[in-house]
């Protein structure tokens, strides 16, 4: 019998995340390579049904929707039950999700329910002799492991920003409703309110461009430069552990081994020397720029482009230049 692949496409507040499209496209691509049937799954309130056809543009011909008013708010316990029931009902062999805040806690719970092995936060998936070989970072990216899952059912979560979603071809997917019987007990934990850290602030793990500052900035108020630069570039603000430990910046901005691991297309490190635990968190960025006074700082070893100068001169000049060329006067 043909194998089945299911991608859980995450939506929050009536919008798909970009990483959901990446997971759908990747799921479809792998399905084709192993000659499997591909399904996508959307969970939520009536928004879920409205959104589902959009996944067609990313390669899903059929989308299963589990709609329930109570599923409008994310509940780890209810969502993991829904996914497991869909997996059982549709006899799914391979499950893909995004390694987002939601996917990272859902995947292991689903794995526990359906007795599946998993490879989480994957940065590459290859099919060799009909088997999926997953590559995932360990030690915060200081090394990688290639993993094969030997259980019958297999779960993979994909690191956001790494796999390509491509452009939608606009083809709507066929939508199939599936009912799951949910009781109050299934909602033993439920998210009831979201608090944005700053209005409209981009998370470092989701941003295409990250501008990070370190101790070289000398004082917390000098982060205004970093914020301005990030804003001009449409990016997110990151920080080194030193400045987070000093209380200059919130810990959700920390990039590095005990903070967040990022792989944006552009990472700009300003006043960061490049401690090994910081490099681990950002060295998989596609292009790295370093601005630091000390030309021997380790950050220059991973940077594609560097300016070994005084950031208090270089950064304002960079802001002006970017305003000019990007037309944001």
């Amino acid at each position, binding site marked *: 019998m043909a194998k089945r692949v299911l991608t859980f496409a995450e939506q929050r507040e009536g919008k798909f995340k970009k990483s959901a499209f990446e997971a759908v496209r990747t799921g479809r691509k792998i399905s084709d390579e192993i000659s499997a049937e591909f399904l996508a799954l959307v969970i939520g309130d009536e928004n879920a049904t409205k959104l589902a056809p959009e996944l067609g543009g990313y390669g899903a011909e059929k989308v299963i929707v589990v709609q329930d008013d109570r599923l409008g708010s994310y509940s780890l316990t209810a969502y993991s039950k829904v996914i497991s029931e869909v997996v059982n009902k549709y006899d799914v062999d391979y499950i893909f999700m995004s390694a987002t805040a939601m996917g990272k806690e859902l995947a*292991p719970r689903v794995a526990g329910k359906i007795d599946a092995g998993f490879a989480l936060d994957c940065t590459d998936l290859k099919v060799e002799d009909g088997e999926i070989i997953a590559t995932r970072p360990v030690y915060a990216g200081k090394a*990688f492991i290639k993993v094969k899952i030997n259980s019958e059912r297999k779960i993979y979560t994909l690191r956001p920003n790494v796999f390509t979603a491509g452009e939608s071809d606009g083809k709507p997917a066929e939508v199939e409703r599936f009912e799951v019987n949910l009781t109050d007990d299934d909602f033993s934990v439920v998210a009831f309110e*979201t608090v944005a850290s700053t209005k409209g602030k981009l998370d470092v793990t989701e941003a295409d461009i990250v501008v990070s500052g370190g101790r070289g900035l000398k004082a917390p108020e000098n982060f205004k430069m970093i914020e301005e630069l990030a804003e001009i570039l449409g990016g997110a603000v990151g920080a080194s552990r030193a400045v987070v430990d000093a209380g200059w910046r919130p810990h959700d901005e920390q990039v590095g081994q005990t903070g967040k691991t990022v792989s944006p297309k552009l990472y700009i490190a300003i006043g960061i020397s490049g401690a090994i635990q910081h490099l681990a968190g950002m060295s998989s960025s596609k292009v790295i720029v370093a601005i630091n006074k000390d*030309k021997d700082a380790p950050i220059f*070893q991973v940077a594609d482009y560097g300016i070994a100068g005084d950031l208090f001169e270089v950064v304002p000049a*960079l802001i002006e*230049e970017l305003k000019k060329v990007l037309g944001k006067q």
Partner: protein
Amino acid sequence: MKIAVCVNRVPDTETRVKIGPDGKTIDKSGVNFILNPYDEFAVEEALKTKEKFGGEVVVISLGGSENVEVIRKALAMGADRGILLKDDSQRDTFSIAKALAEVLKELSPDIIFFGKQSIDYDDQAMPSLVAELLGLPSITVVVKLEINSDGTLIAEREIEGGREKVRGKLPIVIGAQRGLNEPRYPSLKGIMAAKNKPVEEREAPKFDNKTEVIEMLLPPPKKPGRIIGTDASAVSELVRLLREEAKVI
């Protein structure tokens, strides 16, 4: 209240990773091992919970006999007793989770704390998976936790670009994130006292791995970058390169 906290022993963050002779794990020679940094937040929260509600804090760790070090550290911080699940084999997350779940089931704590992830394999799966195997709810990446005396609780967990508030109730599993608290340093008195606190050693129950590491690789070396200048005059060249060569802005 019966409180459990699971801890792991990991290479410290300054470690330069080298691949070991098996090609599948790191070379441990010369590596300094520490209590997993996120587990410090878990231990601290366990102690704070005990201070509020009374009870006992049990520390559990699975690994070789050297894992006693991290149990002792948690005991020095103030935990009451430890359980070492001895095992020297290479286990995957699922197999470790099953062994932990078996022991935790027997303890049946009201609340179980983990660090949100272990900074070695980084898969952030342990708290959720152990909770599922125990049939308990879980909340992970928790930066704020308020437990009420009736057992209901509200946690805040980090999500992309903010936090979400999650309602739950005991018994529950919590994955602690940096920001949840400020871990205390073990006092000299605490360190002395820890030497006399009981640590029970047991063989870890055996379970099969579901995954197999084929090989461990170092990241491909980056080709050396260019220093394009030493002052603000290099800025226009930098912007040109980012636009025309790297094509990222």
